[in-house]
């Protein structure tokens, strides 16, 4: 048989537990990340015109990452235009919480200098990044980017075949979603907003 004060403790304790469960149930949950995305992504360090840039520099923000090359006439401009259009349809506070990154797999023709203007055309804050072929291969492997740069001279107008995905990275630095050529700006904007405060 419980004493009077102990009874009160138990009642208060049970009530507190019930309240905590009720609050947790209502608390907005973070979106789930599909398990197949756990195997790709990770921090990287690449060159921009203003120096080294790490993905982890943008922790706390949503990052949109795209791998391509600047001499691409159709696919890359389409994807980068989609990224820019998506970010611009967010309100100004939301835009401040998103960072777009364009990584060129073609350093023979694309330099950090040339990528600055190229990226900024699609979205004002988009960073254009590249690095040595060897380092790019390391990053591409981590991000499961499948690509091939032909061994041809820079002035030969070669094409670079590459995976065509827009990676959405959440504020914790994890790849949380992938979008392909069928995605719309509404799809991506909706996914971004889920991760913002």
């Amino acid at each position: 048989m419980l004493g009077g004060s102990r009874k009160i403790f138990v009642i208060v304790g049970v009530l507190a537990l019930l309240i905590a469960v009720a609050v947790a149930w209502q608390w907005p949950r973070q979106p789930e990340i599909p398990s197949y995305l756990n195997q790709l992504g990770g921090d990287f360090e690449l060159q921009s015109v203003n120096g080294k840039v790490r993905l982890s520099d943008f922790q706390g923000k949503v990052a949109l990452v795209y791998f391509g090359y600047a001499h691409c006439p159709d696919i890359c401009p389409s994807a980068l235009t989609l990224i820019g259009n998506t970010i611009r349809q967010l309100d100004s506070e939301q835009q401040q919480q998103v960072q777009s990154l364009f990584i060129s797999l073609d350093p023979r023709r694309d330099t950090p200098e040339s990528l600055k203007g190229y990226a900024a055309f699609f979205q004002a804050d988009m960073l254009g990044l590249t690095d040595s072929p060897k380092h790019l291969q390391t990053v591409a492997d981590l991000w499961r980017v499948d690509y091939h740069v032909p061994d041809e001279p820079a002035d030969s107008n070669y094409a670079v075949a590459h995976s065509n995905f827009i990676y959405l990275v959440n504020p914790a630095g994890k790849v949380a979603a992938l979008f392909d050529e069928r995605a719309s700006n509404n799809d991506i904007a909706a996914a971004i907003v889920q991760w913002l405060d």
Partner: protein
Amino acid sequence: MQRFAHFTSILGILIISGFCGVSAQANDDDLAITNGLIRLPPPGSQTAAAYLDIENHRNTDVCLMSITTDIAALPMIHQTIHDNGKSSMRETTQLTIPAHGSLQLQPGGMHIMLMNLEQPLLVDEDIYFNLHFSDGTTKSTVLKVKDMRENMDATHSNMDRSSHFHDGMVHQH
């Protein structure tokens, strides 16, 4: 033997003309070019893509053989291929436009690749193209340079920390 060779070469010509119409058509309106534009590339870019649709109102197939323009020496038609997440381009020649059918060259699919641009492209600029078909017809068309970015007035740069009041208008280009 000679008669046989003659026969097979005539047969060969007939077969080819079945895929790409070779007989000249009198009516100039039977091939229509619509939905054409050139995607405005980033400043300094030497590569751009042009898109258009071709409608064939004829009773016979016809092939698009080549395209010429002053702004690029060798426009090529490319097919974008999406294969298990990996995208690449493949040059395509002799594109068939079926009788009473159409051919679409649009983003993500086929496009006209313009390389080594002879001049920078300006928004709303009119660029002339000649499309050369298998029957000897040449159709001229004008494609406008279009900025395919949207909501450019809604740009809020992370660099721009001052409280900028934008008029709230969204301008569609």
